[in-house]
């Protein structure tokens, strides 16, 4: 009857835990402990960490935490949950117990964390979600406008072609909100310009290798192409055109470093294009929003930030294109220009180390 012996042990353990719980009844409001005295505690709760974008996103967060003003004001921590909602939910519960002041979330599910986020809000914790945001109404969000992404790239192609020409569209992963929105924005602009003819639409799955394979397969049956609109995997599309010895079209695409190398003429042939991306520094903006709201320096409202945009003419090596980083790197880990949202250095994105001698200045202003 081993089972019963262990069963009794189990009961003993549970009893111990319950006694422990009753022994500490007055500590129900942990959230406010750290406020006012010393540093703010802000945690990043990320879902999975399996791709370049997520790695850069966490690196810039860590780098920002090690730079002024955050290094003096905020104590940061980072947690990854994988794509498992219950793990992320447990981690957020534990953050609530720890008494953090703010939680910054890239969610495993837009709906699955509603319950725990509500509990965090109820305890006065500021919750900011970004990229894959949380639906719960009490949380703040930081994101970009994906419809605008599609519109802006399409408008660039239309302008460069003076409203006349044959265009192909390389879309992303079907069934995701971002893919739908991007395509919708592009279709609006192309439809408003009758001189533009869309000769092919196919998916590149937001992946350079897939986009290259798909484009190589399509090209032999296509006429001369004047413009290409790419939702992701842009450098792959260019490589396919180059390999097929086709004249290089005007390209509107994502923020892959490889694409920008072609745009800057670091790789040949030089491409005339515009590059826009979902910036990894959304994590830093969210950190700033959380800090600002806790310190009552910002109004408690969600933010939509403008996309970091560069064209072939405005690229600056070392600032918006990085000759010594791989093609797959997302070069939009930093914004650029006089109205930049935030400026970060290369080592912040590659190693998560602070940019030497720099104070981070986050600009929420609209362009």
């Amino acid at each position, binding site marked *: 009857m081993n089972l019963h012996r262990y069963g009794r042990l189990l009961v003993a353990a549970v009893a111990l835990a319950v006694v422990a719980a009753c022994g500490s009844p007055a500590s129900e409001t942990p959230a406010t402990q750290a406020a006012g005295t010393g540093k703010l505690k802000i945690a990043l709760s990320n879902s999975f960490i399996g791709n370049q974008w997520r790695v850069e996103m966490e690196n810039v967060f860590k780098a920002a935490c090690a730079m002024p003003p955050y290094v003096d004001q905020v104590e940061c921590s980072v947690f990854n949950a994988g794509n498992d909602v219950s793990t992320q939910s447990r981690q957020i519960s534990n953050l609530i117990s720890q008494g953090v002041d703010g939680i910054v979330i890239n969610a495993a599910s837009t709906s*699955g964390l509603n319950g725990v986020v509500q509990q965090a809000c109820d305890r006065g914790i500021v919750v900011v979600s970004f990229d894959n945001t949380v639906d719960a109404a009490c949380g703040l969000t930081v994101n970009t406008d994906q419809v605008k992404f599609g519109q802006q790239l399409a408008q660039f192609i239309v302008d460069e072609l003076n409203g006349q020409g044959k265009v192909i569209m390389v879309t992303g992963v079907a069934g995701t909100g971002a893919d739908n929105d991007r395509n919708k924005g592009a279709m609006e602009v192309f439809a408003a310009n009758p001189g533009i003819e869309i000769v092919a639409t196919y998916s590149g799955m937001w992946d350079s290798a897939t986009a290259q394979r798909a484009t190589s397969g399509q090209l032999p049956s296509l006429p001369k192409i004047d413009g290409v609109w790419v939702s992701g995997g842009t450098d792959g599309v260019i490589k396919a055109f180059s390999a097929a010895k086709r004249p290089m079209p005007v390209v509107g695409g994502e923020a892959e470093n490889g694409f920008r190398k072609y745009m800057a003429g670091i790789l040949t042939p030089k491409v005339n294009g515009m590059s826009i991306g979902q910036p990894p520094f959304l994590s830093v903006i969210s950190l700033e929003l959380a800090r600002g709201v806790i310190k009552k320096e910002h109004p408690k409202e969600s933010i939509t930030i403008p996309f970091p945009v560069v064209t072939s003419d405005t690229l600056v090596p070392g600032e918006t294109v990085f000759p010594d980083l791989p093609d797959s790197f997302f070069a939009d880990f930093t914004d650029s220009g006089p109205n930049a949202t935030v400026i970060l250095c290369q080592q912040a994105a590659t190693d998560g180390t602070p940019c030497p001698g720099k104070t981070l200045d986050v600009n929420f202003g609209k362009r």
Partner: protein
Amino acid sequence: MRDLIGRLVPTQAGLGYIVLVATAAAYLIVYTSSLGRFPTSFDYLSILNTMLPLVFVAIGQSLVVLTGGIDLSVGGIVSLCVAVTATTVTGTGIAPFGWLIVVLVLGAACGAINGVIVAAGRIAPILATLATLSIFTGLALWVLPVPGGSIPSVVRNVLSNPNVPTGLIWLGVAIGGWLVLRRTRFGMRIYAVGSDETSARAVGVPAGRVKLGVYALSGLCGALASVFYVSTTTAGDANAGAPFILTSIASVVVGGVAFTGGRGSALGAVAGAVALTLVIDVLFFAGIDPLYQSLFQGLFLVVAVLLGTVATLVARRRRAAA
């Protein structure tokens, strides 16, 4: 002397409890040393409410494993039932609970389909349930293409109240259900089929019907898990079930249920499920670098399974010596 050593080493069935007690102790230690106080009722409640779905799926999975099978489709059943729960369960008063019963029937029906394929079609459980996993997941996406939906607050208050441990009642019901089930004729037949199907058939156990029943029960458990999932998260996601495939199997393994069938208990799987949930918290408060968390979760599994193997070996040697 040998007897003493034998008594100190757990049998495989007791493994789940040992692992649970060790994990719970580790949790209390890292929590108190990290925060300087004991866990509060908030911690216990949130652990309880987060672990309930896995506990239910693990019970279902353990029933199937006890017959020597495996049910990969739990992921699909949970996804489908989550999608249906989040989209259809509405209204006030008693009405939502009527819908919940519909969801439970749906889950049991999905499980029964597995049972028919395995028992009547004589297809290996791993193949049959892999196929139905895709079908159920596809149906879930059809019902709820983008995450969303809602649950009436009356359901939430009854099932996984964030302020009162109503979850304990349901945990008790689940455990009680198992304790009754295993004393019924059906419960004994589960063990008989899992231990030796041929002999069981020879003495007149209707193995096909038993299997059909187990898979249907596993589906029912999946549906229960979905209801609690939606109740805790307050919304649905058609991909909600995927993580439960591996975590339910891991719970069964940690709980000391033998994959060859016939040995172990659903209670062990419950202990395994609770331990697996607590491991996340132990790693959290131990301050393990998040990059290595999945490494440590894996190590935990390996150690637990190795313990089980050692226990079996010792038990066998003890039996041989006696």
